[in-house]
């Protein structure tokens, strides 16, 4: 589904403008209906990698092939269509503060031009899936951290994307909510969606028992089919 080839991303240091390699020749593939965890310390390059896959930034070198197409050759006007095929979950939730839970989730379907009836049907189903049917009229400021992240997952999943990318989705949550969120991601994966999870949470990774790609200082140092968190 996604092929990452020799991806290199360099930032300039804010202090002396010296180059900092956030990613260094990173290559791997993610297959259809796969659950892949990308692990590493803070600053290992996990978020940069997800930003590059989302075409939020461009690499100095390398390519990301998504279903046969190099995403950096996609015209800017066509980028929204590409991004609609990816569901993204962020550590800081990134919900729309002035929209209700229902509206936050419905937004992606509205963007895609879905009919009102299908939006209503699907949002209700997904709200039920993430256990937030009672909270559909609440604004993000009225939700707990765990609830916000469940809304974010619902928003990422509502349009049945080809892949869900979750960047440290449990980073701001307590252990109880952390496992709730991971269970939810596994549920979505079992429904047939590819999931890429970036995290530095050892317990989460060890409990999953699935493929683990380990990044260290911008390089892939390990890629194991039933991996554990080893750094």
């Amino acid at each position, binding site marked *: 589904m996604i092929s990452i080839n020799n991806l290199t991303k360099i930032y300039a240091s804010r202090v002396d403008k010296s180059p900092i390699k956030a990613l260094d020749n990173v290559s791997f593939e993610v297959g259809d209906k796969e659950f892949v965890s990308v692990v590493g310390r803070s600053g290992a390059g996990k978020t940069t990698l997800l930003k590059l896959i989302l075409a939020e930034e461009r690499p100095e070198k390398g390519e990301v092939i998504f279903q046969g197409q190099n995403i950096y050759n996609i015209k800017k006007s066509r980028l929204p269509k590409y991004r609609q095929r990816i569901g993204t979950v962020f550590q800081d939730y990134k919900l729309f503060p002035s929209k209700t839970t229902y509206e936050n989730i419905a937004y992606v379907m509205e*963007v895609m031009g879905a009919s009102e009836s299908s939006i209503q049907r699907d949002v209700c189903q997904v709200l039920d899936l993430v256990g937030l049917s009672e909270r559909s009229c609440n604004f993000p400021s009225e939700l707990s951290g765990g609830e916000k992240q469940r809304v974010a997952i619902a928003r990422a999943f509502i349009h049945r994307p080809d892949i869900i990318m979750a960047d440290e989705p449990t980073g701001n949550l307590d252990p109880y909510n952390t496992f709730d969120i991971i269970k939810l991601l596994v549920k979505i994966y079992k429904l047939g969606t590819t999931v890429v999870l970036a995290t530095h949470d050892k317990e989460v990774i060890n409990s999953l028992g699935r493929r683990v790609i380990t990044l260290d200082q911008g390089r892939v140092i390990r890629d194991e089919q039933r991996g554990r968190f080893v750094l």
Partner: protein
Amino acid sequence: MTSLKRIIKSGWSAFFRNLALSLATIFIMVMVISLITFLYFLNPISDILISDVEKKVDVSVYFKEGILEEDIFQAKAEIAKISEVEEAEYVSKEQAFEIFLNRHKDDPVLIESLTEVGYNPFLASLNIKAQDASQYGQIADFIQTGPFKDIIEKVDYHQRKPVIDKVYALTSGIKRMGIFFSLVFGLIAGLIAFNTIRMAIHNSSDEISIMRLVGASNWFVRGPFLVQGIIVGFAAAIIVLFLTFGVSWGIDQKVKMIIPNISMFDIFLSNIFVLFLIQVATGVGLGIVSSLIAVRKFLKI
């Protein structure tokens, strides 16, 4: 069509959900449109003032003693045909005498001197008003060299020239100042409105990034901000229209006491449609343009 409906609905609800910010933006926009309205009012007011001053200026053509009235009327008819001439008024010898008596009735020495003369020393004349103060020179030249030069005693243009030039300099100065201040204040007003909307949209910069990342097209992102800009501009225009109504009615009598020819309320009523159009165009135009420019910065993702 569905997208348009969604964009309008989204902009409408965002306007009310961020009511404090929306009201603050409307408040600034009210100031800006009020300033534009003031500049708009300045134009007819300065026109009235200028034409008042210009009305006080004319040139007189004095005819030789003993010229028949028919010849003078013929000359009047010819002069009135000149495109630069707004009005030519005939003053007979007798009328000139009456005017002099009336004007100097409180000055017994002058009246006595006139009696001493023993006859009416005044000449029949034409008082000519030009369309514009700058045209008196041309008119005077035409009369002095035209077909009636033989029946004309004198044209008093050269004696009045310094006054006419001063009036011309004053009126064209007022017009230039009006244009200058309109441009400067218009520009300032535009910048204030733009910056206010820019700051309001800056608050939503994170939201705009999220919209882009979840796959919204540029127009789907821009749309609700444009709708909010239109609502703000329209609401501010309506408020300013009512304010203008109230203020022009309220100060009408006071202004009339100072400048009797100016009725603020009449100016408001006779210009109400154009004024409202300008107010809406200013408000909505600034709302749309400012939103477009401000959102563009955050659409680069």
